[in-house]
């Protein structure tokens, strides 16, 4: 399909991004404020001979997505906090079995049922630490309707490339805002598909990695026979109690992301070249911060912003570099401080100032401006 423009909401842009990325299976359970993704998929999937499947809960939804992926179909689910909590079990399964899937979390107010219709950024640490055990995760954080599309495509590409579950973490405001969306010509989109095995079926070792630490992935129902399990397994996929295999596997599962951190993480630099005070933000607060930076500049304060388009793996290097370039860092988050702690870890000894707001209304431009002025006066 040639390039087309829509005036639409973030949730729908996300669904269109998934379809453009080749997603043909959506398994989900209705939940505010992610429902529009499911509703859009229910209309669009049949047109593309794909499947919209509504499950009995979020656990079944994401587990079925893992199944669809092993059958060779790009697959995703979309949810919000309460559903994301239920999905954590299968996030671990996808990590352990190295299954490419995309999980969209349109973040609402929490804890628990919280404020379903109001946005928040309370699930950032959950995306990283929510499932048990030691693992790395990739999480992308869009801040506009266009990015809901672009980063969903990227989420699929990263999941296929590294055989990992990838989160798209958008706050409800980004999910529900309406802006212009340009859907590029499908031929211009760069799409990535998982590596398939080339070895003879008799020689195939399903969890033997290549040099990039990612093993080629055989599909169910092919000439390759294999056993995939959430248990610790050797290269044959066979379960084992061995310390050696456990250490090797867990290390590789972490390393296959960490070794490619520079390729995975994306940040946007805004007025940073001569900045003395930098905002580090993602999602909706970054939109307020953009305005606040402009207003601060008008007042003669050298402010700038580093916008995170990836929160996991954490962009350590760009933060460390930023901290050596500026005098102060301000982190406005629509929560009690989550990314803040990561920023602080890599920015030390540069002072990092947190602006918390665990509420549906994000930090407003003038609030961030006031904070910039306050820090500037120090």
């Amino acid at each position: 399909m040639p390039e087309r423009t829509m005036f639409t909401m973030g949730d729908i842009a996300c669904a269109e991004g998934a379809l453009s990325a080749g997603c043909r299976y959506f398994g989900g359970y209705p939940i505010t404020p992610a429902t529009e993704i499911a509703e859009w998929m229910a209309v669009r999937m049949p047109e593309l001979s794909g499947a919209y499947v509504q499950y009995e809960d979020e656990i079944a939804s994401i587990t079925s997505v893992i199944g669809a992926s092993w059958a060779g179909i790009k697959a995703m689910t979309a949810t919000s906090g309460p559903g994301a909590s239920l999905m954590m079990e299968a996030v671990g399964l996808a990590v352990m079995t190295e299954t490419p899937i995309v999980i969209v979390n349109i973040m609402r107010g929490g804890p628990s049922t919280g404020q379903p219709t109001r946005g928040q950024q309370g699930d950032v640490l959950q995306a990283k630490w929510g499932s048990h055990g030691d693992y790395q995760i990739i999480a992308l954080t869009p801040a506009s309707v266009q990015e809901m599309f672009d980063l969903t495509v990227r989420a699929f590409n990263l999941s296929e490339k590294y055989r990992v579950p990838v989160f798209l973490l958008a706050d409800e405001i980004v999910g529900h805002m309406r802006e212009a969306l340009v859907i590029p010509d499908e031929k211009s989109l760069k799409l990535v598909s998982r590596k398939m095995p080339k070895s003879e079926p008799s020689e195939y070792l399903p969890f033997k990695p290549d040099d990039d630490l990612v093993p080629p992935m055989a599909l169910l129902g092919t000439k390759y026979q294999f056993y995939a399990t959430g248990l610790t397994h050797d290269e044959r996929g066979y379960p084992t109690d061995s310390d050696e295999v456990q250490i090797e596997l867990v290390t590789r599962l972490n390393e296959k992301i960490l070794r490619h951190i520079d390729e995975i993480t994306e940040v946007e630099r805004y007025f940073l070249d001569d900045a003395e005070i930098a905002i580090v933000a993602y999602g909706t607060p970054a939109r307020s911060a953009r305005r606040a930076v402009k207003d601060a500049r008008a007042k003669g304060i050298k402010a700038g912003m580093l916008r995170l388009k990836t929160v996991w793996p954490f962009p350590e290097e760009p933060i460390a570099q930023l901290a050596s370039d500026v005098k102060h860092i301000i982190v406005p988050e629509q929560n009690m401080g989550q990314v803040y702690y990561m920023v602080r870890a890599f920015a030390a000894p540069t002072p990092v100032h947190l602006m918390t707001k665990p509420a549906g209304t994000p930090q407003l431009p003038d609030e961030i401006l006031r904070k910039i002025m306050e820090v500037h006066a120090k």
Partner: protein
Amino acid sequence: MTATAEQVTLKHPMAKYIREDRMPWIYCPGCSIGIVTGMITRAIDTLGIDFSKVVVVSGIGCSGRTSGYFKTGTFHTTHGRAIPFATGVKIANPDLELLVVAGDGDLAAIGGNHLIHACRRNIDMTVVCINNFNYGMTGGQFGPTTEHEKWTQTSPAPIGNIEHPFNLVKLAASSGATFVARWTAVQVRRATKSIEKGITKQGLSFIEIVGACPTAYGRMNRLGEGVDMHKHLLEVTDIQNGLPPHEAELDYARRIVCGEFVDIEKPEYTDVLKQMHAKVRK
């Protein structure tokens, strides 16, 4: 009798379906799971279907280990999630034959919601439930099929289990499964036949195999060794093919009603999905 070299090289006729490099398997002496694994391979062998198109999925526990012994595409999911995983595979590639092998705890407790909804959806897969009345892998705790007042590690004497069990045949039938059968591990030929029918059936088939867990449940309830338990199953079996499922009682000590209770036709999920796609394209 001393074994000749020729006898030593004799292979089990079903070995071609099994990952022999994973033998010996983890099951205790006297366990029924090996018998059920044999039933499944024989059913596949009789049907002559392409084994590479068969996908075996299981959950957690002793029965959960079953998938890993089959020499085809197999997946060992988290606890209770074999059915949702298999559903995703089947919808993504309807040409595949999906077999779910799981225990009573996996299917009826933690995965109970998935079981009833898969029956309701009528998605084409064969669910084989090995019911041994307890959580064996974790050492023998009561589960959703443990009978009232029976002893387990978490329902110890003198009180025993204060809960009452599910009757899985009734549960699957009332949830909408299109083929429902129950056998014990000693009705091997009959059970194998039902598994064949289940695989052939275009819809959700649920086959309960009542088995023995001599290591945990048998020991705690003084039911004897594996052989004793299997002999008992033979004695109390009451074959009643075609009986309305709501009459398919299971009273471990006295009467286990076995047979095929449901065999009905209903539109299958992936078939309907295909028809809907054709409708949209028009």
